[in-house]
């Protein structure tokens, strides 16, 4: 059993890989921002005084966390058009990623919020702040800080999960690898290159989050 690795023959396909990497990065950045925003909103909804909002958020979170990502993706891309909601593959993939990260990060952020001592709410209340002001200024920033490592991991999981959106022909990195190997028959090399790029992206993402941490949390010891 012998196999001669031939990366040189991949060179003509580098533009395909580059385009794929760019789409993956694009999907990751937008879905991370959107997903964390949605997650924050739902975490707040879960502790709201309004029962309907609490229940709606809980249903959404449980529905997403207990179904496979690829089924969510197919539901959005193939299912929703039946209701008249037409979208491109890229849009569907993006929405699926945002919805997925939104649900998981909501639970993570909620854990951070619930870890806030009751006295923090009381101190805000006695100073005359509204519930919303207390949440935004007093409760949320330390909550993010507490669960930051978990949020970083979850965001990276979603970045890696973006490989799945190649299934609806979003032309991201895995799609590019698929395409190249079908043209060149260099499957081993194509997927190996894709894997290495994912690894590098994940490491870069972790570092970017590390940098952001230093800027966002002024007091490192809470």
């Amino acid at each position, binding site marked *: 059993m012998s196999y001669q690795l031939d990366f040189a023959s991949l060179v003509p396909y580098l533009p395909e890989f580059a385009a794929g990497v760019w789409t993956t990065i694009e999907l990751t950045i937008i879905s991370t921002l959107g997903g964390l925003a949605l997650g924050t909103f739902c975490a707040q909804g879960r502790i709201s005084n309004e029962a309907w909002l609490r229940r709606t958020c809980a249903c959404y979170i449980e529905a997403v966390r207990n179904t496979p990502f690829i089924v969510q993706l197919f539901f959005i891309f193939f299912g929703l058009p039946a209701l008249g909601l037409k979208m491109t593959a890229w849009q569907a993939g993006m929405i699926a990623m945002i919805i997925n990260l939104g649900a998981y990060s909501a639970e993570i952020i909620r854990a951070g919020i619930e870890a806030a*001592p009751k*006295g*923090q709410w*009381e*101190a805000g*209340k*006695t*100073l*005359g*702040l*509204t*519930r919303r*002001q207390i949440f935004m*200024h*007093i409760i949320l*920033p*330390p909550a993010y*800080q507490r669960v930051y490592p978990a949020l970083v991991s979850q965001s990276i999981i979603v970045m890696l999960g973006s490989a799945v959106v190649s299934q609806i022909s979003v032309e991201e990195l895995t799609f590019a690898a698929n395409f190249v190997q079908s043209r060149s028959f260099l499957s081993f090399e194509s997927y190996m290159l894709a894997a290495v790029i994912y690894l590098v992206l994940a490491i870069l993402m972790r570092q970017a989050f590390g940098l952001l941490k230093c800027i966002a*949390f*002024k*007091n490192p*010891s*809470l």
Partner: protein
Amino acid sequence: MSLVSLDEVHKYYGENHVLKGVDLRVNAGEVVSIIGRSGSGKSTLLRCLNGLEEYQQGAVIVDNQSVENDDYKLRLLSRSVGMVFQNFNLFPHMTVGENVMLATKLVLKKSVTESRQLAEELLAKVGLADKFDAYPGNLSGGQQQRVAIARSLAMSPKVLLCDEITSALDPELVGEVLKVLEQLKEEGMTLILVTHEMNFARDVGDRVVFMNQGKVWETGPSDEVFANPQTDELKSFLAAVR
């Protein structure tokens, strides 16, 4: 008209009858110490004065405002009533200065410059002018509690509620906090404190309220109450804490 008045206040935690008809009047400028055994309802009573606890019967009126379970009314009330807690409850992610400025910016809508100036004055007053940019986690307990007092004062309250504010402090740090309270008394601030500092209650407080079994058991001018307790319960309590 008293600044603070409670009429026949009853409070239940489920089946547990915590306050059993409390009557109390506090005039502006008075320093009132609430003492009693743990479980006698002193902290609950204090927390009924600013709406942190609901009560089921009776009336609580502070600064001509009825204390009710209504978010908007309680926010208005919070401008008249400040509170300092046993565990400081400073906001750990904000500097000392930001802690003091937060409510003046968000609630009183003062400008940053104005808020900052006020915060600097208040921190100087509690002896922490140099800690404006420090984080609470880097301060001693006594310093943190003085920041908490400055933070309450930023809202210029008419009455300051102190809930066992020296109980979490190391003994050598108690003095610096009590000194600030004494200073506030001299400036005419109304103080209602739940406290275990009997010397402070006797020497600085105008009046003592002894709570027992959810009621105001005995009350009177500090020196008289300590020198000459009337009820057996207060006598045995004072004997136990001395």
